[in-house]
C-alpha cells in the first residue's frame, strides 16, 4: 500500500460485519418471536425438515420395497397409511416425499427470486426503454396461465427434478420482478444513491452494493411466500404426470392414487395423508412469510 492510511486488518473488518449482522438477526428474532402464527409456521417447517433429514431412519421401509404387504391394504399398526398398488408402505413413501417437495419448493423459489430480483433491479434502475421492454415481457409472462406454460415446458424439456425447478421458476418470476422494480424506483431517488453517483460509483456498483442490499429483505420475504406456491405447483405438475417418476413426491403419490382407482375404491388412506402434508407445509410457509412481511413492513403491523 502506498497510501499513508493503514488498511483495516481483514479480521477486524469481518468481525465487525459479523457483529452487525448478529445484532440485526437478534432484533429480527425478538420481533418474530412475538408473532404467534409465525412461530406455528416455523415449528411445522422444522418438523418437516427433521423428517426429510432423517427420512431413512424414520421410514420403516425403503422407497422401492415392493410387495411387503398385499396391494391396497388399509392402515394397520405395521403400515400406518396402508399400502399402494405395488404393495409399498405408504407411510414410508410420504416420509420420503417430504424431501422432494421441500427440495423443489426451495430451489424453485430461490431461482425465481433470483431471476425476478435481477430483472426488477435492472428494470427499475435503468428506466426508459429498457424498463419498457422488460416490463412488457413481464406482462406477457403474467398473462400466460402458469400451469399451461408449465405443462408445455415440462412436456418439452422432459421430466426431471432440475427441469421442474426451472419450469416453476420461469412461470413465477414476474411477480417478484414487479415488486422489486417498484421498490427500486423509489430507492433510486434517495440521497444516498445520489451521493454514490457523485462520488463516482458506476451503475453496476450502485445496483449491487447499494440497491441490492436494500431490496434483499423484500426479495427474501417474497421468496418464502414463493416456496408455498412452488410446492403447490410441483404437486399439480406431478399429479398431471409431469413430475419426476424416479423420485417420490407427495404429488406423485396422489397421481398414482387417482390413476389406480383409489377414489372409486374409496381408499381414503391413500389420498388423505399426502394432501394433508402439502397443506401443512404450504400453510407453514404462508405463516412464516406473513410474519416476516409484518416485521419488514411496519405499516402492516397494526393489523
Amino acid at each position: 500500500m502506498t497510501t499513508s492510511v493503514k488498511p483495516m486488518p481483514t479480521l477486524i473488518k469481518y468481525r465487525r460485519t459479523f457483529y452487525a449482522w448478529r445484532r440485526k438477526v437478534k432484533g429480527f428474532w425478538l420481533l418474530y418471536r412475538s408473532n404467534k402464527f409465525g412461530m406455528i409456521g416455523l415449528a411445522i417447517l422444522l418438523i418437516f425438515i427433521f423428517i426429510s433429514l432423517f427420512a431413512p431412519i424414520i421410514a420403516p421401509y425403503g422407497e422401492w420395497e415392493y410387495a411387503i404387504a398385499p396391494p391396497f391394504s388399509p392402515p394397520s399398526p405395521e403400515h400406518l397409511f396402508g399400502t399402494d398398488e405395488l404393495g409399498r408402505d405408504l407411510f414410508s413413501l410420504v416420509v420420503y416425499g417430504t424431501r422432494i417437495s421441500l427440495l423443489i419448493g426451495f430451489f424453485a423459489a430461490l431461482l425465481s427470486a433470483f431471476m425476478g430480483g435481477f430483472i426488477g433491479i435492472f428494470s427499475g434502475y435503468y428506466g426508459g426503454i429498457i424498463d419498457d421492454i422488460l416490463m412488457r415481457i413481464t406482462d406477457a409472462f403474467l398473462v400466460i396461465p402458469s400451469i399451461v406454460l408449465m405443462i408445455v415446458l415440462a412436456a418439452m424439456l422432459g421430466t426431471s427434478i432440475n427441469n421442474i425447478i426451472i419450469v416453476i421458476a420461469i412461470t413465477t418470476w414476474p411477480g417478484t420482478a414487479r415488486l422489486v422494480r417498484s421498490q427500486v424506483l423509489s430507492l433510486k431517488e434517495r440521497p444516498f444513491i445520489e451521493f454514490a453517483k457523485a462520488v463516482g460509483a458506476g451503475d453496476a456498483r450502485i445496483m449491487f452494493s447499494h440497491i441490492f442490499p436494500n431490496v434483499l429483505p423484500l426479495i427474501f420475504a417474497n421468496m418464502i411466500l414463493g416456496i408455498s406456491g412452488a410446492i403447490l405447483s410441483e404437486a399439480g405438475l406431478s399429479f398431471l404426470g409431469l413430475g419426476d417418476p424416479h423420485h417420490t413426491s407427495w404429488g406423485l403419490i396422489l397421481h398414482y392414487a387417482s390413476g389406480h382407482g383409489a377414489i372409486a375404491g374409496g381408499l381414503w388412506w391413500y389420498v388423505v395423508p399426502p394432501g394433508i402434508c402439502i397443506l401443512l407445509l404450504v400453510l407453514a410457509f404462508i405463516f412464516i412469510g406473513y410474519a416476516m412481511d409484518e416485521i419488514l413492513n411496519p405499516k402492516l403491523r397494526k393489523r
Partner: protein
Amino acid sequence: MGMKEYLIRRSVQLVVTFFILVTISFFLFRIMPGDPTAMLLLNPQLDPETRIMLKRKLGLDLPWHIQYFVFIKNLFSGEFGVSFYHGKPVIEVILGVRLLNTFTLVGSSTILAIIIGMILGCIAAWRRGKVVDLGSILFSLLFYSMPVFWLGMLLLLIFAVRMRMFPVSGTVTAGVYHANFFEYLKDYLWHMTLPATCLTLIQIGSNFLIMRNTLLDVLSEDYIVTAMAKGLNDRQILFKHAMRNAMLPMVTIIALQLAFIISGATLTETVFSWAGLGKLIADAVFERDYPLLQGIFIVTSILVLVANFLADIIYAYLDPRIRY
C-alpha cells in the same frame, strides 16, 4: 392525463405485450426440441420426395424469420394447424362445446367465489380481531394452501363415492336420452355441482383476504369518519360508503387472477373429467398433440391479456385517480 391518452398508452402496451406473447409461443413451439412439425418429418417411412414436398408445404424450408411472419399471418387468420389426435382444425376443437363447458364452470364458480369472498371480507373487516374475523382468515388460508386437485379428490371420495349424492365424472350421464332441454340442464348442473364447489372454495380465500384488506384501508379514510360523525348507522356506513369504494380495486384484481383461475380449472377439470379446455390440454400432453397444445396456449393467454386490458380500462373509467 386524460382518458384518451390513457387509452392510447394502454392500447400500445397491449399490442406490444401481444407481440411478445406471440414471439414466446413461436420460439417455444418452433425452435425448441420436440418441434411438432419436425416430428412428422422424422418418420423413416417417408420417401425423400414426400419429405421435401411436406417440408415446403409446412413452410419449414424457409428461413426462420420468414417462418415467424407466416406464423403471425396464420395466427390472425385463425390457422392453428390440424390437431394430431382429433383430426380436426385446432380452432374447431377449441372453439366449441369445450370452451362452453369451461366457461360455465369457471364463470359460475368465480362469480360465487367473488360474492362469498366479498361478504365474508366485509364481515371480517367490520369485526376485526373478533372470532368471526380470525375464523374466516383461518378458513380462507386453509383452502388457499390446499392443492385444488386434492380438494377435488376429497369431494369425490365423500360426496360421490361414500354418499353417492353426485356423479364421479363427466358433464352429463353417458348414454342417457334427455327428453327436453330442461332435463339436460338438470343433468348438467348435477354433474357440475362438485367441480364448481371445488373451484369456488379454492378461490374464496384470496378474494376474502383482498376484500378484507381493502375495506380496512377504506374504513380508516376521512369520509368514513365523517359518515360516523353524521350519526349514520353501521349498515349505512358499511354498504353505502365503505363497500362501494372497496369494490373498485377488486375489478383489476379479479382480472389478474384469471390466469390463476385457469390454472386451477385445468386441475379441477382433470380430477372431475370435466370436458373443458383444461382437460383438453392435460390430454393433449399425453397424446403429444403439439398443434392443439400451441392453440390452447395462445388462446388462453390472449383471453387473459384482453381481460386485463378491459379491467384496466373499466377501472380507469370508474376511478379517475388511476389515470396518473
